[in-house]
């Protein structure tokens, strides 16, 4: 069978079926019987409108990434590690930071070779930078984490409310086995107040209820944590959480 162009992937066809495909996919599907057949195939799985009993028994969903962050996907950022990235990552990994919030100024660099590390990327408009620990973020900016887990096998990411004591909500939770960028980015909203991210590396999942204790205990060999406090331009003046 001849097609005028390579067929879109199943992922792209699925997105097309959901109304989120690319324009060139629509053009391809219009002229490709194979892809039209695949789309029909997706539609024949139903009757999808009749959710079965097991689905209707599900508990209510928790709010998607609650409050100030909204899950967004960002294209992989071209992870060529710059010299600055290396320095900043090792600086984050250094023991002298303890569990002090990151974002109170840039300290001198002390590296721990082979230890855990985090990179926080900020996308502002079309520009992507590694956060330097001091620059404010803006509503609409996208934040994305890259992690070097070292010996840890699980990562949990939380955001903190501005209240005292802080309430933590899980943004991401999953296994991690190698240096990788997390598959999602988060969007800064227009609400006033600093934004706080807490990252915990451990051997297993950490619940929001445990976060405060993890931060208090510091890096104890079982868990490694870092807190990012990002000032937001236009935010109400006030103390950091």
């Amino acid at each position, binding site marked *: 069978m001849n097609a005028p162009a390579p*067929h*879109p*992937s*199943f*992922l*792209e066809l*699925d*997105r097309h*079926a*959901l*109304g*989120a495909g690319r324009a060139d996919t629509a053009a391809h599907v219009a002229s490709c019987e194979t892809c039209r057949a695949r789309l029909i*195939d*997706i*539609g024949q*799985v*139903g009757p*999808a*409108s009749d*959710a079965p009993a*097991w*689905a*209707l*028994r*599900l*508990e*209510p*969903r*928790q*709010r*998607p*990434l*609650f409050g100030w962050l*909204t*899950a*967004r*996907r960002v*294209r*992989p*950022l*071209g*992870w060529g590690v710059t010299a600055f990235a290396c320095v900043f990552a090792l600086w984050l990994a250094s023991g002298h930071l303890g569990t002090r919030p990151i974002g109170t100024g840039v300290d001198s660099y002390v590296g721990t070779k082979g230890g855990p590390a985090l990179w926080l990327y900020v996308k502002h408009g079309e520009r992507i930078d590694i956060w330097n620990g001091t620059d404010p973020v803006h509503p609409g900016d996208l934040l994305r984490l890259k992690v070097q887990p070292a010996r840890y096998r699980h990562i949990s990411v939380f955001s903190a409310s501005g209240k005292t004591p802080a309430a933590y909500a*899980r*943004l991401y939770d999953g296994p991690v*086995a*190698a240096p*990788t*960028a*997390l*598959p*999602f980015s988060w969007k800064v909203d227009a609400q006033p107040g600093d934004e706080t991210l807490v990252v915990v590396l451990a051997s297993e999942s950490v619940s929001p209820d445990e976060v405060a204790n993890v931060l208090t205990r510091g890096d104890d060999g079982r868990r490694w944590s870092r807190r990012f406090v990002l000032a937001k331009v236009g935010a109400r003046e006030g103390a950091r959480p």
Partner: protein
Amino acid sequence: MGSLTEDQVKEAYRRYFPIIVRKSGRMLRDASEAQDLAQETFLRLWRSRLDLRDTAATTAWLYKTCTRLALDRLRSPVKPAAGTAELADAIASPEANAEERSHHRAMLQEMLGRFPHDELEAAVLSRVDGLNHQEIGEVLGISERTVRRLLSRIDERLVGWRARREVVA
């Protein structure tokens, strides 16, 4: 359960479950296994904090999660899922002849047991789902360069397979 939740479940199910079922069916050819996998994937989607209105992010998450859950099932030493042979064929060589397919099936456990997870995930997304390097990078959260490296490595391993087949023959 409130009616709002029920409506939300129905909407999520209507929108995403057919896609999950088809994706599951491409990896696990046994219909019952595929249905189980689809249900597990949907449950995880429901419990996630994804914004289900973000179609691109949600479909990327579904492809990643469903692939990983399928590979976990296939690796299970207690109760391996049915359909492993077909998946091995797809990963190793979609154009394989009968002799090669037989060999792939015989070597299946080695593939699932010894090949790194990330290489298998990339191979499934590439050879079973037809994703290009950019899409695989998007789904797995890695760069296109890393995708190319993963696929190149698994190809090298498969060359080793074929060499062993020739020795056995």
